[in-house]
């Protein structure tokens, strides 16, 4: 347990340290102020604008910005769909090993999934995707990640600007997100991964004659090309079926730590960007602090459950559950030795909070309550650092609810950063908080009561099966992509219903967030008075954490009781 806590502390400390320089850099990039790579990147940027007819001075209102975002995502989805459906006629397709048929519904689900940063995978990578398809997936990882960052920046502008009808220009933001942030960082990260052992080739699968004379076919491919951006863009869909558990995808504990930092560092830095751009650095740190508390509390809970494991299982097999200096102990079913409990739980926390569906251990084989934490992280809307660009609005929307409730409780005027939270602003915030529970609970109810839904439960049933289905829709709606993998989701029913959840989770939420940002951008900023709730105080900090817990509990306690809680209490002794 001490080692697990230490790893967690190191992780959060690095995220906090990098938040300042990276947050300041992001602010400069998106405010169009000078940065050090300008000289190299300006010509590329200008060329893209010239060829495409982008007027970088043109300001977009919330509706035009949203429309551009949706259009961009739709083109990415269509491009990806075309490549996937044609993959057997394109190069680097190996029909002997890539045996899962690319049906139209699987291609549709994958195209929606990767263009919304969900990267839910209803297929196994090495048995389905050609190398060309894997590169098309890489493309979608970049573009969807950049679009998320752009929306997050536009959202921040809504609070930074006064008496403005514009939130920036989507094309400028997305091009800058690609050129100034994602492409250079992913290049360095991918080369680092190759150094650590991640393959980067276009070779055929290797046939090895093993030391005992057996035959082992070893999948190859441009693995490193995909594996870093999948985390940096908070997408998560891996090259292989077992994602980050595969030793080619995630060969060392160091590679794993860097991957989890790639997920978390930029969303953490955006809280500093928020403080910088709004001129209220304390408010930015408050957001960071709340994120850190939610992140650490969840990770410690999962660690406690996974380190104790299942007494039933330990007794049956005579297994050691305590960690010693020469073995990890705990629940090692579905976990890798090199990561142990600490590295597995860190990844579960970073991915489920970070809208990233990469995993390095199998969630199906977690203790029920250990796995309830990642599930809850997704259901809460992934606000502990969160997805790239989406995390900041997940938390600020929850904060606006808190401002509203806090104002009611103490009879103060609800205001945030000198802007009034009136009836017009509160409505979309409430719709935002209801959207995810609405879609997740409705689709779960349909799935558990229909034959097509329960047909997906191949290995586990009962409360655990219920959890699997709930987990699938929570993951889709949260644009996460994590899965409890024994759910067979490659059916028309799941391919269509999870895609619906992904579309709502991506576009309804981003649209509402941009609408709210548009409303705030229009307002002037009032001078602070004592009649206003102070949102940069420890009291407000506590109130916000409380509201997160209460809203989460009120929305989801019933289904959590039917799923993981029942599974733990009844099934695990």
């Amino acid at each position, binding site marked *: 347990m001490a080692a697990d806590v230490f790893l967690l502390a190191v992780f959060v400390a690095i995220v906090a340290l990098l938040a300042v320089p990276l947050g300041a850099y992001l602010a400069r990039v998106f405010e169009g102020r000078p940065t050090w790579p300008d000289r190299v990147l300006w010509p590329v940027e200008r060329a893209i604008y010239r*060829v495409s007819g982008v007027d970088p001075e043109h300001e977009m209102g919330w509706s035009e910005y949203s429309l551009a975002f949706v259009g961009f995502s739709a083109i990415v989805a269509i491009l990806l769909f075309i490549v996937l459906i044609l993959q057997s006629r394109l190069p680097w397709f190996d029909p002997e090993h890539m045996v899962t048929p690319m049906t139209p519904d699987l291609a549709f689900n994958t195209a929606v999934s990767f263009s919304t940063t969900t990267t839910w995978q209803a297929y196994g990578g090495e048995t389905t995707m050609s190398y060309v398809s894997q590169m098309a997936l890489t493309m979608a990882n970049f573009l969807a990640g950049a679009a998320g960052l752009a929306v997050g920046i536009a959202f921040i502008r809504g609070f930074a600007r006064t008496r403005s009808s514009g939130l920036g220009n989507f094309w400028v933001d997305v091009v800058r997100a690609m050129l100034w942030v994602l492409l250079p960082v992913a290049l360095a990260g991918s080369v680092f991964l*190759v150094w650590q052992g991640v393959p980067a080739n276009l070779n055929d699968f290797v046939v090895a004659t093993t*030391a005992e004379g057996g035959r082992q076919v070893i999948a190859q491919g441009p693995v490193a090309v995909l594996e870093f951006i999948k985390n940096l863009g908070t997408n998560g869909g891996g090259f292989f079926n*077992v994602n980050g558990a595969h030793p080619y995808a995630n060969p060392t504990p160091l590679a794993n730590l860097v991957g989890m930092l790639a997920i978390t560092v930029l969303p953490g830095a955006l809280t500093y960007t928020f403080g910088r751009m709004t001129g209220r650095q304390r408010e930015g740190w408050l957001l960071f602090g709340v994120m850190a508390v939610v992140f650490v509390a969840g990770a410690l809970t999962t660690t406690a459950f996974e380190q104790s494991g299942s007494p039933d299982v330990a007794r049956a097999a*005579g297994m050691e559950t305590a960690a010693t200096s020469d073995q990890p*102990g705990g629940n090692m079913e579905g976990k890798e*030795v090199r990561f142990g409990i600490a590295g597995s739980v860190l990844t579960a926390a970073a991915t489920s909070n970070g809208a990233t569906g990469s995993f390095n251990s199998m969630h199906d084989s977690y203790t029920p309550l250990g796995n309830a934490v990642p599930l809850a992280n997704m259901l809460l809307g992934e606000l502990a650092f969160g997805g790239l660009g989406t995390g900041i609005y997940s938390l600020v929307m929850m904060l606006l609810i808190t401002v509203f409730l806090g104002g009611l409780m103490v009879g103060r005027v609800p205001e945030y950063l000198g802007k009034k939270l009136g009836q017009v602003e509160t409505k979309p915030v409430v719709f935002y908080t209801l959207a995810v529970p609405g879609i997740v609970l409705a689709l779960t109810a349909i799935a558990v009561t229909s034959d097509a839904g329960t047909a997906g439960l191949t290995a586990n049933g009962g409360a655990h099966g219920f959890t699997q289905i709930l987990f699938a829709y929570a993951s889709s709606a949260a644009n996460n992509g994590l899965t409890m993998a024994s759910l067979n989701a490659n059916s028309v029913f799941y391919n269509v219903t999870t895609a619906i959840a992904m579309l709502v989770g991506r576009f309804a939420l981003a649209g509402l967030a941009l609408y709210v940002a548009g409303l705030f951008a229009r307002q002037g900023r009032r001078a602070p008075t004592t009649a206003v709730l102070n949102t940069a105080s420890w009291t407000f900090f506590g109130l916000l954490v409380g509201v997160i817990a209460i809203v989460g509990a009120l929305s989801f306690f019933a289904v959590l009781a039917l799923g993981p809680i029942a599974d733990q209490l009844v099934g695990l002794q």
Partner: protein
Amino acid sequence: MIQGEPATSEPPDLTEPPSERRLARAARTALSVTLLLALLAGVLFPIVVIGIGQLAFPRQANGSLVLNAQGQVIGSDLIGQGFQGAGYFHPRPSAAGADGYDASGSSGLNLALTNEKLIETLRDRAQAYRAENGVPDDVTLPADAVTTSASGLDPDISAANAALQVPRVARARGMSEQAVRDLVRAHTQKPLLGFLGEPRVNVLQLNLALDGAQH
């Protein structure tokens, strides 16, 4: 046609829905920006990463393959193999493929801890492991010895797991237990900086070292 547009024809209220003509122009812009960025990310980026990887780290970029003296591939440092012989250290149980360690189809077992089938499987594996290595019932087994890895390709076992297999391997090979134990110690990887990762033994490397030690 974009450059010719006078800026004054833009409606001043940006929240108003765009007109049909502006929509067509916006669609062209959207298509063009998206395709250019797609080329950068989906074509140029993979070429650069594969190129740098092949030049700077050719061994890793091609899968960290292990060759025998004749230059034939016998496996990869990173990918576990399903060793079964008594003279070899055995890896963790694997759910990849029908016989385990199928490196063209990675997979976990994905059974719930509350699933009776998993408990039976683990009980059977524990019995087999105890019988094979002569481990009495009052000695607890390291968790990684009986549980399934996440990937089905885990190249490592814990040091405790390796230690329990030492007597069997030594007997089968006619080596002293001390000699085998020394090899295990030499192949035990410590956590990086003392805290990153678990102490572990790469089974393929250890077994190849055993074969090498007897030549």
